[in-house]
């Protein structure tokens, strides 16, 4: 039987020991009338048949050059990353509750926490959340908990990824938290300090600052952070960890630094995979540590003084604190963090900075090539990093569909989330793109813009 090793002799011995005549008897406590008829599922396939089926499907989805970013980025992942991360001992282990038999996973997580704290310039990190969107949700909840004397109001710029804002909404809506959207400057594409003026003295619990923001524009993080700290608000820095090889980390924003840093770890070794699995990360300053949701690994000792790792500060978690826990999160995204640690170890500080710089250089080059096409221009004037919004002279949906048919995923249609940006697309060229790829995009776009609609 697939994946079940029992022989009929063994089944008999086992039933015998239990003292029943058949396996059915073991289900006797299930009321008869609840027994369901045979399930209507497609007939079982052997490994060979299912392989062929899935290969056909994967092949159908393969190919094409991707110039979409918008929260998920195509990067080169060194082969060693998944060769090691998918070793059975990592992949098929449980959450490391039994520390003494899980030092491998635990130490990787400790190293992960160190790297994330280092990247964000924070004091502590948890061992992952689900993804960037839900990570921001947890950060918001955490900030509100940490700021009990303030109003349950959190400011989130409209320049934050629209999906993230939707997730935050879903996660906070039943806890009486008010999320207020801060507009961005329509010319520069980033939050102007003056948009915050009306919240002065309003005791808002927290301000979220994205860097770079959803449009790839760099926010004036120092200014924004200082404003929020002056207001007693918790500052949540929402960052792409890859860019932190070059960009100022949240812990160093403004005078005091942000209090919480979060984001999606996807650029650190997670394949695009239609959206997941990725992982969310959450780092914070020391004083917020006990408000942190999710698992945390700490170093301790055994009776003979040998140091080892263990899950710690569990009094924050659902299995101890139940309805008073910091979050309901239990399983998070373990193996993705293993990949991230290996990925970062292979890149090192220099490699990470180079990848970030190259992504930026490639995007700049692409922006230059595309804006050289008549009618194509930048949507915003603010300085951008590694991602940019472009305005097209024709309806974006049709253009993107045409590009897709020619093997180019040309970008994200900003009109999907921003009615006013209906003419704009968000593009990104990572280090994976060659000069020829960029030219191919430019040439194809010229063609697509000139072709008759009906084609």
């Amino acid at each position: 039987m697939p994946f079940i090793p029992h022989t009929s002799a063994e089944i008999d011995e086992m039933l015998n020991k239990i003292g029943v005549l058949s396996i059915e008897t073991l289900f006797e406590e299930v009321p008869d009338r609840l027994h369901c008829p045979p399930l209507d599922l497609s007939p079982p396939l052997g490994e060979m048949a299912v392989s062929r089926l899935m290969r056909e499907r994967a092949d159908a989805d393969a190919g094409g050059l991707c110039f979409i970013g918008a929260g998920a980025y195509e990067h080169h992942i060194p082969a060693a990353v998944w060769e090691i991360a998918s070793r059975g001992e990592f992949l098929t282990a449980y959450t490391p509750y039994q520390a003494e038999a899980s030092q491998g996973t635990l130490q990787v997580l400790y190293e992960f926490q160190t790297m994330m704290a280092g990247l964000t310039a924070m004091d502590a990190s948890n061992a992952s959340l689900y993804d960037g969107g839900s990570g921001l949700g947890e950060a918001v909840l955490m900030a509100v908990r940490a700021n009990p004397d303030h109003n349950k109001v959190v400011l989130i710029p409209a320049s934050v990824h629209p999906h993230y804002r939707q997730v935050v909404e879903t996660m906070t809506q039943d806890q009486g938290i008010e999320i207020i959207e801060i507009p961005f400057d329509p010319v520069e594409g980033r939050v102007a300090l003056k948009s915050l003026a009306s919240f002065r003295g309003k005791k808002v619990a927290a301000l979220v600052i994205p860097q770079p923001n959803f449009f790839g524009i760099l926010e004036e993080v120092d200014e924004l952070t200082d404003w929020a700290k002056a207001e007693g608000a918790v500052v949540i820095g929402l960052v792409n960890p890859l860019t932190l090889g070059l960009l100022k980390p949240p812990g160093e924003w403004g005078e005091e630094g942000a209090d919480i840093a979060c984001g999606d770890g996807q650029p650190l070794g997670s394949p695009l995979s239609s959206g997941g699995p990725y992982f969310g990360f959450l780092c914070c300053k020391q004083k917020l540590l006990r408000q942190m949701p999710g698992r945390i690994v700490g170093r301790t000792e055994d009776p003979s003084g040998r140091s080892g790792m263990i899950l710690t500060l569990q009094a924050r978690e659902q299995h101890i604190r139940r309805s008073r826990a910091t979050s309901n999160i239990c399983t998070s995204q373990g193996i993705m963090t293993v990949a991230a640690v290996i990925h970062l170890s292979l890149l090192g500080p220099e490699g990470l900075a180079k990848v970030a710089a190259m992504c930026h250089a490639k995007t700049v080059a692409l922006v230059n090539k595309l804006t050289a096409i008549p009618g194509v221009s930048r949507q915003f004037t603010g300085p951008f990093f590694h991602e940019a919004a472009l305005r097209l002279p024709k309806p974006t949906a049709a253009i993107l569909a045409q590009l897709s048919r020619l093997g180019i995923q040309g970008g994200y249609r900003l009109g999907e989330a921003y009615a006013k940006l209906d003419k704009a697309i968000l593009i990104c060229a990572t280090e994976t793109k060659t000069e020829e790829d960029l030219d191919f995009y430019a040439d194809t776009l010229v063609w697509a813009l000139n072709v008759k609609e009906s084609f």
Partner: protein
Amino acid sequence: MTTTIFDASRAGRSNRQHAPQDSQTPLDIPERFLRKTPPLLPQVGELQVVRHFTLLSQMNFSVDTQFYPLGSCTMKYNPRICHVLASLPGFLNRHPLATEGSGQGVLRSLYELQEMLQEISGMQAVSLTPMAGAQGEFAGVAMIRAYHRSRGDEGRTEMLVPDAAHGTNPATAAMCGYTVREIPTNAQGDVDLDALQLAVGPQTAGLMLTNPSTLGVFERAVERMAAIVHEAGGLLYYDGANLNAVTGWVRPGDMGFDAVHFNVHKTFATPHGGGGPGAGPVGVGNRLAPFLPLPVVQKQIRDNGREWFSWMSEKDLPQSIGRLSTFAGNVGILLRAHIYLRMIGAEGLKRVAEFATLNANYLMARLTEAGFAVAFPKRRATHEFIITLKREADEFGISALDFAKRLLDFGFHAPTMYFPSLVPECLLIEPTETETKETLDRFADAMIAIRQEARDYPQRLLKAPLAVPVPGGGIGRLDATRAARKPDLIWKESAVL
């Protein structure tokens, strides 16, 4: 602990093969946005990285190497083929926002998974987006809340949860803004019906139930319970963590549940990854369908007669509770579940329940015969069962923890300890269907041997583990109190010396 990767770092080491050539264009970013000092990341060669993490991996127990009778967690064999196929480049390289036309393979697979899960649970609609069981619970409870709200029924502020429930249940209810009310369990391990009857009322939003329960028994009166809650105007949520005990035998929808989450990393054998990623799809009946979290895959028939799979958005599901994940949840994990289901089919799924149950009852019989106290000796075990070491604790001064730690020395992962908390000194044991009788026998023998040790050399048990059979396994019992008292959560340069 082995030295960390940071200890191996040396300034100036790099793997040029992984860094792009220096870019020609000078960085045009204003100074104020830039980092001043490089981040603390190790500078190590590729061989060192491979060696360090390979050696670390060996320091783990895992299903691929050890028996893992971890109750509630369902650590069964994770077929390698599911991992391999879900890792095909066509799947891995697709951007979540790529056009639907370039993703018909994955969208079709997800759609079929939705349909399979509907059939398996007896529900009417499914959303795959939750990224773990707990998020599935959140989705379910948030939908219940949205449902009541949509009917203007705002007074329902209480969520009922049995006292034996998993911690995520009350935590989820709280995240959805509910007050949690615990319902006691009776001596037979069933939820106390009278208490439930007393607890329900106009304030009741619903009941969260795991069935088979976390006590390893089937809630025999589940229909009665459903009736009580429904009569009071509440809805029933099914925590699917134990669904693997009854797949193909009985369906949550038929038992009266309105919402259910699936733990694909338990029931459908996706690997647990040392703590994820999992996936926690939710299924619902018609009443809750309008509130499903987004996105959901739909199938349309095009003019040319071809099937077309696409994402439903807010426009299609205006009452949705919204998004739970940035994109579409843990797609790669969902693909693994899809492949697993394709391989075992309906009969296979029924067999999973049967053999998980056979293994649990057999192991329970062996341990009972050996004199261990089973928490509910009069009941059939489902896929898991509880033993209590209360007597051993009293007689020999050892605890369930000591037992658990000593099992590690025998090369067995410990069962779940001290959960559910109503059973003192308990171990919750779930052998799963993929383990052989020999393995169960060896485990039972180890339990017996450890009890003998508890009698003869209790001191030894108190010091366990003594030698976990992994490289570097000389580590003794780690001090949890010390870890929490003075948290050492990140490596620091000074700590080396």
